[in-house]
């Protein structure tokens, strides 16, 4: 190449420097995630070697016998997250439909409501925890849980004495926290559904709900699934709010009304109790399990949401 010398060459040198510097930052993010995986694996190696698969399938967490197994916490994470999704998905989706469909025409009000709901996500989780412990848990104990016991008291799910700080309340506080995630992402996805879908349906004489049910939701299905998975990721990783209300019991819970633990609350509550190498490795292994769960859940969600909206819009 016989490109003119001088200005252009020095420019390209500056370009290279800039690209190298900002590229290093981009590489840093990749390195960070890889480093996380490596550090968590090496940190928990002792525990992986000692307990093997029993770490996930066993139910004993006892520092006296030096046995650390997390099945109750894993079960707690799955249960509380499932409750959160069962309660949070219909509500979050309802808000998304309201904001994208029904609210067409009253845009200003819808925008205000949208930002109000998104404000829910701005409140730090530790404040939800405090509120959950002092306001929500007593309310659950006195009103909601006895009612559920009467209505759904068949053997299993809602047996035992309502105490307020239990798996079920943990699930409810998680539901409150993931609703903004599900509603904001779903709203963007519903907005991305082409209007021709709706118009075709209306022209057949369909009601508003039929348009949503038969033309909009099926089209947005994979994106909404992605939003749900994203909400699930939030629920699985949430720590402080749950710690306040779940009761922090490391034994196997008997029903939804027993105090329980999740993987995240187990780390917070057991941390600093004992500092022998094995229990520390076990706690890091809990982190490794969470790492793998989060990686799988978030990758899946990203792919699904991306495919639908084709934008990498970031949301905190």
């Amino acid at each position, binding site marked *: 190449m016989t490109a003119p010398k001088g200005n252009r060459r020095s420019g390209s040198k500056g370009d290279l420097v800039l690209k190298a510097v900002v590229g290093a930052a981009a590489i840093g993010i990749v390195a960070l995630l890889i480093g996380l995986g490596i550090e*968590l694996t090496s940190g928990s190696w002792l525990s992986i070697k000692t307990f093997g698969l029993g770490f996930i399938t066993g139910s004993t967490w006892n520092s006296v016998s030096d046995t650390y197994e997390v099945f109750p916490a894993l079960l707690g994470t799955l249960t509380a997250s499932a409750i959160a999704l069962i309660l949070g998905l219909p509500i979050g989706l309802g808000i998304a439909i309201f904001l994208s469909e029904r609210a067409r025409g009253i845009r200003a009000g819808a925008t205000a409501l949208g930002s109000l709901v998104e404000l829910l996500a701005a409140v730090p989780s530790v404040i939800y925890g405090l509120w959950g412990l002092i306001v929500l848990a007593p309310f659950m104990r006195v009103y909601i849980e006895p009612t559920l016991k009467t209505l759904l008291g068949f053997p299993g799910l809602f047996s035992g004495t309502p105490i307020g700080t239990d798996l079920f309340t943990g699930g409810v506080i998680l539901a409150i926290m993931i609703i903004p995630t599900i509603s904001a992402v779903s709203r963007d996805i519903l907005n991305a559904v082409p209007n021709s879908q709706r118009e075709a349906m209306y022209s057949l004489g369909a009601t508003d709900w039929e348009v949503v049910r038969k033309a909009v939701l099926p089209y947005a299905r994979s994106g909404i699934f992605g939003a749900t998975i994203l909400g699930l990721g939030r629920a699985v990783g949430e720590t402080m709010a749950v710690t306040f209300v779940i009761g922090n019991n490391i034994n196997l819970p008997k029903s939804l009304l027993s105090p329980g633990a999740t993987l995240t609350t187990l780390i917070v509550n057991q941390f600093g109790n004992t500092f022998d190498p094995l229990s520390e490795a076990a706690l890091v292994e809990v982190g490794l399990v969470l790492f793998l769960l989060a990686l799988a859940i978030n990758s899946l969600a990203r792919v699904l949401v991306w495919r639908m909206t084709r934008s990498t819009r970031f949301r905190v």
Partner: protein
Amino acid sequence: MTSILVSGRRRSWRRIFDRIMKALILLSVVIAVIPLFLVVADVVVQGLPAISWSFLTENPPSPLAGYGGILNGIEGSLLMVGMGTLIAVPLGVGAGIYFSEWPESRLSFLSSFMNDVLAEFPTIVIGLFVYAVVVAPTRTFSAVAGAVALAIIMLPIIARTTEESLKIVPITLREASMALGIPRWKTIFRVVISTGKSGLATGILLGIARATGETAPLVVTAGYLNFPPTALFQQTASVPYIIYNFGTAGYPNWTTVAWGAALVLVAFMLILNLSVKFFIGRKSTGVRAEI
């Protein structure tokens, strides 16, 4: 499809069903807004008794001995969020510039994907990582460890908002600058970044807001101390940790301290949010303020 066109009684049933579903949708909106209202209302009502000037200038009280203050937490939070911001801003802005200027590269695709994953990562896991990397070698919980954890949490937020605010700078501006023979790196600094700087500021503020409220990673990296920090490598309190510590203890006055700390935190968030709105309002950047 034919079933939809059937008129008569079935049609009125469809109308009723339509109404019911609309009512349910409206109900879901109401249900979601109630907790928001209640949380904020409770924080204000229960937190106000603790608030006085001394709440910002004294250290926390003993059990059953008044409300004291949360000076240790405020100073600890300022220290750790400040140091975290200093670490996260260059990295995040750098990565954001790379994502926006070299979007076709394989590294951009990979790193941007990892960035999204990192943004949704359980923060307690990030805390454990920092525990292994910083706390274990230095043998002490510290403000430095807390700051590193908060920096990792802020990083993806700053990177993403930087990318978005630079991407919407009109291509014509870049072309005009390039046409004058200004090299690309100078164009990026002088034209692209200065046009998108309010978006950059927004990203940094969003990152600060997120980091200030984080608790879980600080439990395993910074710990708690009943006094303001005097050294970088010692246990360091923070406002959210005070909410956790005092809120779960059960003493009535400590619970009020927790509510008061929550009120201070919410007020701080509100100020940050308004600043974000201010930055966005001043120059339309297209970056949406969604904390």
